[in-house]
């Protein structure tokens, strides 16, 4: 009996969770008979089983709820009150189940109150549909749920239904309800259930420990066999070894669960909240199938619920307020989860009023977290971070929903525990979003196992683009610009760093000419990590770093390899960050400290510094340069008054940076090669100086054509060269050869959103050249403000990686507003991964173009223009 009861409790709890979710869906979609059928069926089963097990309280409740639901099925509208009543009943059933689980029997007491309410509700509904009362089995009663002919001995659904209805309602009365009807209806479910069984978590944990022990023992055996060359054990041991590995993998997989499990209760919570608070709230959930380790899932469940509650309570405005603010009445809370760069990202976003910066500030000062003078110096983003401090609940009034002192500090603690981070972004009046980043924790990822400085390390494969073996003279050549090593890989120059050097194992910068180069991409940055050896790839289960090691930015976790040894997991993000630092550390100390500080900033650009015509340095973003060449001056030819050089089977025009740069007549001539599709041109310069990682902050706009402006780079005023200016000098039709859209009567207007002044300046002339009227905005919020102010644009081109509000969020904001929903948006990004494109499509980008792909951008614009005309 015990087992039976336990199984009943577990199963019923699960069914009730489904009922919760389905009822909320049904309320929104009252005509969906399928949902109702599903709910009805589940409650019906519960009722039947209760009768069977002799649980009168549960049975009476389930029966009363079922009767009310029967009314819906008869065509009565599901009013919000009625649904609330049913949900309350379900809560009561859950309470009873809880004590049933504890005490093995139903608790004392009765449910007259609820049952009375339910019956009253049924009575209220009754007069509206008179035919429902006298006849039980009319044709309109139920859409046929059973999808197969009846087997002999089975009763039809309608008959069963009648049997239930005719049964007296008095709780103690014995019920004819046998489990049979439930089973009949649950046929499909039963089949599914047979595919899985229930195992306690303890059993799994124990299994995991035992497998680890097995791995260790196997390793010891392997070690012994290694010492005895021709051992008979060798073959069986190998077999044991692979079986063990598979077993380990299998056991690890049992721990993974979709994040949707943690979200299951949210629709109900949001629904109750919206009733209670009188707000209209839509809850969207994306990526529910993203898998997480069970342990992690448990830890983030409560924080997520808390954040959703917060959004509903504080974040979203009342319908009146929303209408006054020009927003749709329905507020939106969006939950999404996805894997990105070896992390699991979970976002909770709403389109509510955003954080009240002034309030948080005064509260932080009152709590003594910051002094008043310091607070004035903080940016908005920094102030927003105070919400994670204890005692910072900012709800103006304490409601029953939130503001009970359990705040975001608890959320943050929970996330810290699993080695994750949480970030908040808020735009006043537009919305609030939390981004939780769980660094690989306990997730299984494929990793490349490499060797550096005699130790093994794992690099998450998701960041690895390719492996290159560098050879002198080969197509992939390692070159040096001053002290910086770069790899020439097809059309790109990649900065290189030796892993052992980054990790401080080798103090020598080391020679990068030997060894393997792991070409890695993080965000917009590509670089090569030089390692001594590459072993294999392995599926690893990432374990969080010890709290004593978490400050080391270069590692994202550690893991136990198949052979039982512990290995550190390199964090490509950390490598990207320290690359800038290493480059800088070779310069003078004071400067280095300064630029390290800058490099830690997220917006650094790799700049190629050179001299041309004057001692003042000039710079151009490395990413724009295709190659650096030094050619023999004798090879330069003069044709038609222009300097040319034969390059890769083609004639490549040379353009001087300015009049003062002389094309050399002997010796080696340094060139910067720019390519666009099949064409290349070279800029003649005097000397290539260095590659520097720095923030590009163009301060003075240049008077000279060909110069975008000046920036301070490593403490020196440096001219930033406008590559766009020189390209047409080589080929007059560079920008307008074939794809120039025919000019319409009116020039089409285009809004360019990019936080980098460099790209704004570079792209504007290009886009103007193809016939657009270009307006530039430095941030998404600036762009949104333009739309709000009533400006209209035919097309929007936006960068993805921007501070505060990124391109994805910007596109979503545009989509959310009916006034701007139809404007085509083209995304520019230095990263064009499948994942990013997919995400872009979801948020409504019309196209996705690599940042430096001018022709791609022009083609995309043309396509949008054509679509626009056709429409």
């Amino acid at each position, binding site marked *: 009996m015990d087992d039976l009861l336990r199984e009943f409790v577990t199963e019923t709890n699960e069914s009730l969770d489904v009922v919760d979710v389905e009822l909320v869906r049904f309320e929104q979609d009252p005509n969906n008979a399928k949902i109702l059928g599903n709910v009805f069926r589940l409650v019906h089963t519960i009722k039947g089983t209760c009768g069977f097990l002799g649980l009168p309280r549960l049975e009476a409740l389930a029966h009363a709820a079922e009767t009310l639901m029967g009314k819906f099925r008869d065509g009565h509208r599901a009013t919000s009150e009625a649904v609330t009543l049913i949900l309350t009943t379900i809560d009561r059933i859950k309470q009873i189940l809880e004590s049933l689980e504890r005490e093995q029997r139903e608790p004392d007491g009765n449910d007259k109150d609820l049952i009375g309410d339910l019956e009253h509700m049924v009575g209220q509904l009754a007069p509206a549909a008179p035919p429902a009362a006298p006849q039980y089995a009319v044709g309109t009663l139920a859409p046929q749920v059973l999808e197969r002919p009846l087997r002999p001995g089975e009763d039809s659904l309608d008959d069963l239904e009648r049997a239930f209805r005719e049964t007296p309602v008095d709780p103690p009365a014995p019920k004819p309800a046998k489990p049979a009807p439930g089973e009949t209806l649950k046929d499909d479910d039963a089949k599914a259930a047979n595919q899985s069984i229930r195992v306690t978590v303890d059993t799994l944990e124990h299994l*995991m*420990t035992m*497998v*680890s*022990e097995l*791995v*260790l023992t196997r390793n010891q055996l392997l070690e012994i066999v290694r010492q005895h060359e021709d051992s008979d054990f060798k073959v069986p041991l190998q077999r044991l070894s692979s079986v063990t590995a598979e077993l380990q993998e299998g056991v690890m997989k049992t721990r993974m669960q979709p994040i949707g499990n943690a979200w299951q209760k949210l629709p109900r919570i949001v629904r109750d909240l919206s009733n209670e608070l009188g707000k209209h709230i839509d809850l969207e959930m994306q990526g529910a199938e993203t898998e997480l380790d069970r342990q992690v899932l448990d830890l983030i469940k409560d924080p997520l619920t808390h954040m959703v509650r917060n959004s509903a309570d504080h974040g979203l405005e009342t319908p009146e307020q929303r209408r006054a603010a020009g927003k749709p009445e329905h507020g939106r809370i969006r939950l999404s989860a996805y894997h990105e760069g070896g992390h699991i990202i979970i976002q909770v976003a709403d389109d509510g009023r955003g954080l009240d910066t002034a309030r948080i500030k005064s509260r932080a000062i009152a709590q003594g977290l910051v002094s008043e003078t310091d607070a004035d110096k903080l940016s908005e983003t920094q102030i927003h971070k105070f919400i994670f401090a204890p005692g910072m609940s900012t709800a103006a009034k304490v409601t029953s929903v939130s503001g009970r002192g359990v705040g975001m500090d608890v959320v943050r603690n929970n996330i810290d*525990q699993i080695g994750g981070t949480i970030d908040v972004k808020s735009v006043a009046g537009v919305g609030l979003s939390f981004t939780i980043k769980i660094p690989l924790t306990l997730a299984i990822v494929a990793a490349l196992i490499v060797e550096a*400085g005699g*130790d093994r390390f794992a690099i998450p494969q998701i960041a690895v683009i390719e492996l290159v073996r560098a050879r002198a003279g080969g197509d992939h050549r390692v070159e040096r610009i001053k002290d910086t090593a770069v790899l020439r890989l097809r059309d790109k120059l990649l900065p290189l760093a030796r892993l052992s050097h980054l*990790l*401080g*194992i080798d103090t020598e910068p080391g020679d990068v000419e030997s060894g393997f180069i792991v070409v890695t991409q993080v965000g917009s940055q590509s670089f090569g990590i030089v390692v001594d050896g590459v072993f294999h790839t392995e599926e690893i289960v990432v*374990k969080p770093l*010890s*709290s*004593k*090691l*978490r*400050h*080391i930015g*270069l*590692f994202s976790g*550690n893991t*136990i390899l198949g052979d*039982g*040894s*512990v*290995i*550190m997991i390199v964090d490509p993000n950390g490598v990207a960050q320290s690359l800038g630092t290493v480059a800088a550390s070779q310069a003078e100390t004071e400067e280095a400290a300064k630029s390290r500080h800058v490099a830690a900033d997220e917006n650094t650009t790799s700049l190629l510094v050179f001299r041309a015509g004057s001692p003042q340095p000039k710079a151009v973003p490395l990413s724009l340069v295709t190659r650096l060449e030094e050619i023999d001056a004798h090879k330069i030819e003069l044709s038609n008054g222009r300097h040319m050089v034969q390059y890769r089977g083609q004639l490549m025009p040379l353009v001087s940076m300015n009049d003062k740069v002389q094309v050399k007549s002997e010796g080696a001539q340094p060139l910067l090669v720019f390519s666009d599709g099949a064409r290349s041109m070279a800029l003649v310069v005097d000397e290539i100086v260095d590659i520097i990682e720095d923030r590009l902050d163009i301060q003075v706009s240049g008077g000279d054509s060909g110069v975008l402006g000046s920036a301070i780079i490593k403490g020196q005023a440096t001219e930033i060269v406008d590559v766009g200016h020189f390209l047409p000098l080589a080929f007059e039709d560079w920008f307008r050869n074939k794809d120039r859209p025919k000019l319409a009567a009116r020039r089409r207007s285009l809004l360019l959103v990019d936080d980098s002044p460099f790209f704004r300046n570079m792209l504007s002339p290009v886009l103007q050249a193809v016939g657009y009227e270009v307006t530039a905005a430095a941030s998404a919020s600036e762009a949104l403000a333009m739309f709000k102010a009533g400006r209209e644009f035919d097309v929007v081109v936006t960068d993805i990686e921007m501070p505060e509000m990124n391109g994805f969020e910007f596109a979503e904001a545009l989509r959310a507003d009916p006034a701007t929903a139809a404007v085509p948006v083209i995304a520019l990004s230095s990263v064009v991964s499948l994942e990013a494109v997919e995400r872009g499509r979801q948020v409504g980008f019309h196209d996705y173009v690599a940042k430096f792909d001018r022709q791609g951008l022009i083609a995309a614009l043309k396509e949008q223009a054509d679509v626009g005309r056709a429409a």
Partner: protein
Amino acid sequence: MTENAQQNLKEYVTAIIGGQLFGLPIVRVQDVFITERLTRVPLAPPEIAGLLNLRGRIVTLIDLRRRFGLGEREPGQTVMAIGVESRGESYGLLIDSVGEVLKLDESMREPNPINLDARLARVSEGIYRLDGQLLIVADVDRVLDIAPNAMAA
């Protein structure tokens, strides 16, 4: 064996580190193991000797010689570790050798001598005078309190 006498007695696992006798409260000690197949962690604080896999758990090893400023260990000798737990994480404290378990009377414990080396005073909860030698009572939490910033440079 009255109630009172029981209450005043505390059990310590003793260990020798750099010739000095230390005692760790037995309630905090999970196990004692021999360290094998250690993985070093680049850029880690010097006190952190590395990581190892102990029955499927990753254990962070802390070199108590370095932590207490008691000189470097000679290479090649087998190293014992005392396993402790703190906030759900497993640590192994590297020692030279493990001694017997002692029951000591709480009231006999003396405060740290004022001239005790700062690195020891930081972790010591007091001193017991035993026959012919001194035992330093180490507080596990303070031993584990390795500030990440202290090493970053």
